[in-house]
């Protein structure tokens, strides 16, 4: 089981997006999410789609891998769409009426709007994890968070916590495997029975795992002390992140995207209008 897990779905490739500074990618993803939420017209989704296609091409990740992430949420998307279609109120152009249930054109459009929003959000954020290793991400987050040091947020400690967690995830996964095998050899059954029975059956795995995790933490604490953790508040940094031209390009492209969305919003209905007609 553990052999197949590529943690964080990272897809190794030598691409433009892969080489971008993780901080830029993090900021751009946040800006992208904001952009998607800004969308008021379905036409804007064309702009977003163009942006995503460019991003996927620039990441050299096979489309199949990207779409796999959507597959995961497909059920939610369809469910959301259906709920929206039936429970949307305030629509005028009725298409279909039956008893108390009224389906309007507006409802259909709204459902489409929500579905597309979900899908594009997932694709955009997945691109982040596909093109950035977990270590890179934590380095980026630590760097972005460093201004928080001024208000006494323990940024470095948090970064070490994240780094250690990442380091131990594959180890703990392997340990779960081993413990499960050992308990199975003693007749434990993890497959049959209802939900409660199966949950109880996991105790012989979870308890040793927890104990083991705490033991490791104990030993790791000694190792940290031996390497003089917190010897001085004046820590230095080995790995330095450097912004490059690619990051500038990314910012420009995203800025264009946001401008396009804003323009579409403004031109159709005025800046504070509210409609999503076609």
């Amino acid at each position, binding site marked *: 089981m553990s052999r*197949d897990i590529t943690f964080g779905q990272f897809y190794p490739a030598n691409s433009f997006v892969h080489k971008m500074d993780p901080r830029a990618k993090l900021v751009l993803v946040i800006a992208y999410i904001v952009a998607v939420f800004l969308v008021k017209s379905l036409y804007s989704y064309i702009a977003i789609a163009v942006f995503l296609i460019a991003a996927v091409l620039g990441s050299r990740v096979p489309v199949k891998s990207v779409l796999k992430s959507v597959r995961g949420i497909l059920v939610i998307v369809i469910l959301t769409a259906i709920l929206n279609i039936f429970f949307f109120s305030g629509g005028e152009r009725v298409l279909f009426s039956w008893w108390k249930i009224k389906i309007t054109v507006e409802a259909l459009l709204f459902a489409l709007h929500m579905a597309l929003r979900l899908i594009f959000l997932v694709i955009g954020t997945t691109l982040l994890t596909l093109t950035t290793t977990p270590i890179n991400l934590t380095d980026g987050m630590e760097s972005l968070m460093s201004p928080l040091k001024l208000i006494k947020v323990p940024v470095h400690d948090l970064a070490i916590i994240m780094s250690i967690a990442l380091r131990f995830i594959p180890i703990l996964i392997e*340990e779960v495997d081993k413990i499960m095998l050992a308990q199975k050899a003693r007749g434990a059954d993890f497959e049959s029975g209802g939900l409660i029975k199966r949950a109880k059956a996991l105790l012989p795995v979870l*308890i040793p795992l927890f104990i083991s995790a705490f033991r490791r933490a104990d030993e790791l604490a000694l190792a940290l002390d031996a390497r003089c953790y917190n010897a001085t508040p004046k820590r230095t940094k080995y790995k330095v992140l450097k912004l490059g031209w690619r990051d500038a390009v990314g910012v420009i492209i995203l800025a264009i995207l946001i401008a396009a969305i804003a323009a579409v919003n403004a031109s159709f209905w005025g800046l504070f209008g509210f409609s999503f007609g076609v």
Partner: protein
Amino acid sequence: MSVEIKNLSYTYSVGSPFQKDALHGISVTINEGEMVGIIGSTGSGKSTLVQHINGLIKLTSGSIKVYDIDLTAKKPDLKRLRSMVGMLFQYPEYQLFEETVLKDVAFGPMNFGATKEEALAAAEEAIRLVGLDFDEVKDKSPFELSGGEKRRAAIAGVIASKPKILVLDEPTAGLDPIGKREILNLILSLKKAFVKTVIMISHNMDEIAEFCGRVLVLSEGRLIADCTPAELFEKEYSLEGTGLTLPHTVNIKRLLGQKGLSLKGDTLSAPALADAIAEALRRRV
């Protein structure tokens, strides 16, 4: 015949980019009463091989029969199989979990269908058998025991259902010389009790030499040697690539042979070697 393996092959993660051949056409028959050692470097397939014997790994190619249970059948009775084949993993103390030692040791029998009374009785017997003070440890949390006691408690948990075959993966790993001796003696005493056949994975050649009557050597998923320890050490080449070294007794015998003094008879243990050297020297004089 207690375990019969024919043409066993196994591939991990078929169809994925992680696909890896772990075993190639292994055939071996282990008879009741044997004490078999399995050696090989990391990745040679030792664990994969033994985990087929109690069905932890599903048979995909080849055939395996353990006593009357045929693993090629559609739905082999894995519960009964696992009650017959006890398996002790490396550092077994890390699988203890119950509130009390007694309950933990009773886990196996309970799973295999014993009633609560039967399971507790079996657990008590097992705890005594491994040399722990029953009255002292039965209500203790397993986590309160010392390292050596924990390992014994884990062993008790594995033998509580009186398995006929005992598979051990590096049973003496991490122990000091006294601890190693104690565990090995425990295994021998279990063999005298109800365990008929012992299969032991080890990288400690001295242990293999002293305790096993037969040794299987695995390399890159293939069985490259199946003989007695003495025979194995004659064919020194088989150890190449396994990262294992000759036991000292064998090395000394070899060095003496190179200098023209040949020894006769068993020389695998230190006393036996001393006897053989004494005999050879007296012959010369």
